[in-house]
């Protein structure tokens, strides 16, 4: 392309921009559906990305909640087994003035396992 033709093209481009028919000049109407499709894909991509972020945030919060429950369960279990031991029970009964003691004879059962 000569310099003359180049400047001519630039002039036509600016003129088409001024007149608002640039897209018609570049025959964008012919590729309209493709352009829209690209926009749709981009929109879906952004939407999915946001949804993924939302899901990951939710998963993180759930993980933290589960971890908290696990800790709570562990602490409760420790507290429970501490008071469940035979000597702890005996000591508690004694403190409360109970006459109950550990069994001295084995329990009678219907069928021994």
């Amino acid at each position, binding site marked *: 392309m000569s310099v003359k033709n180049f400047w001519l093209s630039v002039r036509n481009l600016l003129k088409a921009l001024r007149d608002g028919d640039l897209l018609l000049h570049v025959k964008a109407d012919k590729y309209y559906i493709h352009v829209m499709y690209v926009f749709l894909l981009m929109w879906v991509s952004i939407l999915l990305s946001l949804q993924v972020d939302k899901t990951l945030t939710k998963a993180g919060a759930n993980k933290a909640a589960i971890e908290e429950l696990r800790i709570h369960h562990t602490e409760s279990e420790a507290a429970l087994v501490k008071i469940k031991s035979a000597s702890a029970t005996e000591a508690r009964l004694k403190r409360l003035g109970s006459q109950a003691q550990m069994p001295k004879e*084995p329990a009678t059962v219907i069928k021994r396992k």
Partner: protein
Amino acid sequence: MSQRQSEIKDTIENRDRIHVVTFFLSMVFLAMGIMIVVWIVKIQASYTVDDKVIGLFRPVVQKHVDTPVRGRILATDGRPLAISAPLYDLYMDCTVLKRSYQESGKDSLETVWQNKARELAVSLSRIFPEKSADGWVDAILTGRAKGSKYLKIRKNVDLETLRRVQAFPLYNEGAYRGGLIVEAHQERIYPYDSLARRVIGYVKEQNRIGLENSFDSELHGRDGYEWRRVTDDGSWVRDLDSTSVQVKDGNDIRTTLNVDFQDIADKALRAQIDADDDVRAGICIIMEAKTGAIRAMVNLSRGATPQTTLWERENLVLRQVGEQGSVMKTVTLLSLVEDGYVKTLEQTIPTNNGFVPNYNQDVHILDYQRETGRRDISVMHGFEISSNYVFTYLAETYYGKKPQEMFDHIYSYRLGEAFDFDIPGLGTPVVNRPDTPGWSKTTLGTTAYGYSISVTPLHIASFYNGIANKGTMMKPYLVESIEKDGKVLRKFEPSSLNESICSPATADTVTRALRAVVNTGTATRLKSAKLSVAGKTGTARVVLSANERGGSKDPYSDLSGRKKFQGTFVGFFPAEDPKYTILVTVYSYPSHRNFYGGTKPALAVREIVDKIYAIDPAWRPEIHPVGKTRQTTQEQ
């Protein structure tokens, strides 16, 4: 000008214009190139990186390291013996918003904050009463005046307490306004406190002992990490485009320990030794006869002085290598019966006034002669009264010319070596054989009644378990499986140390002798136990350390005649069909008293046997219907 000349002129003009444009463009590019080079040189030489600029170009991500949760140590029924949970240290930044209030010039805001701090102090005093409400107000406001950013509220609080604290006035407005600083750290919790602590062990920074140490590779798990990025709404989420390693929590260890048995043994032992200041320590082992599974292992000891409390300070069961005394007579008896030298327990030997050449006289034989008028004694009676003379005589008579034969037995009972155990550090026995420097002309006889040979209590318990198990000596073990979320990953089956230390007939014969010890011998305190017990007492003097001797030439006593004793009872129950093997040993400080195996250890064993009888499902009686029962249609 001809047409030809005109064309040539146009062409030349045209070329000149192209040359001008090209030249102009090349100059522009050249200038740009120079500028770029100068810019690069400038950047390399003098440009300093502005973090704000870098921050704009750098994706907002951070590495998050996940620490694994340490696996649990469980009792045989699944009750937790050691578990991990985070504990929280609470601090307060007393200076929050102080500067911004000052800069705004609004004193009312500062007043509001301080009023809320007063409400906070009231709440804190309720949950942490070591300071009154006024005390907490004073601490917070003084901290605010002095610019304290790290006022300690309380260390090691649990999650529930943390949540309560976070709901207090001021703290419920978030860290930015309330100034609460929470620092979490993983902590090991032992719900049963001191129970079986030497077996379970502990973790303190890099120091570990017991199962916590020997199974650390299973319990520890594997660290993980992931990269996290910030989302549009400011949340941190995993960056799926980056690499990550999944954290792997530690596996659980299921032990063979029975918490109830451990509790019973611990309590029974304490009952015998806690009030006695002359007792330094007491141990107990309960082992399942058929498998070798350790159901309880107690290691209670005091510190250097009798005033210190009993605690699981050291693993004496594994590490107390010492002369065990008369409990070793069973080793001699088993060997004699197995070799056919003692054909029946009623076989007699001459009493010889309790004298064997080269050995000290056994004065108990003189008592026996006086009381019975006899000049012979049966092997059974010698065992019942635990006569040193009888076993010296038997050893010298039958093994005197071939001592290696007796020592071969000792090694076959695995009493000469440290076998593999789930907790490392089992003491190595010291055996004086004919080919070792410690051998003398009295070694054979003294070995026969439990001196000149040093073993651990675990060795002794394993040996007696072999007799209980009709000759099959099981390997003691503490861990039955490695688990993950309740699923068994690896199971450790029982194994034997020696498939046959003796024939079943020999085991039965020795069991009869052990039963006689309880019925009419040195352990009659166990005669009326709720289950029949077969076993042997042992009382041994313990060699004093140089400090304890204080210049005395006698290795067993100090200058004032004080001696250290260890009294042991070891046996199994029920004698007819043994289910458990038990050993209890009591160790004394140097004292003028004697500590016999038939006293405190036997009493502890009796309490343990009676209580196990009451709770073990094996001895629960079944209801048998009496009278008519309604028959079902099918039966009719």
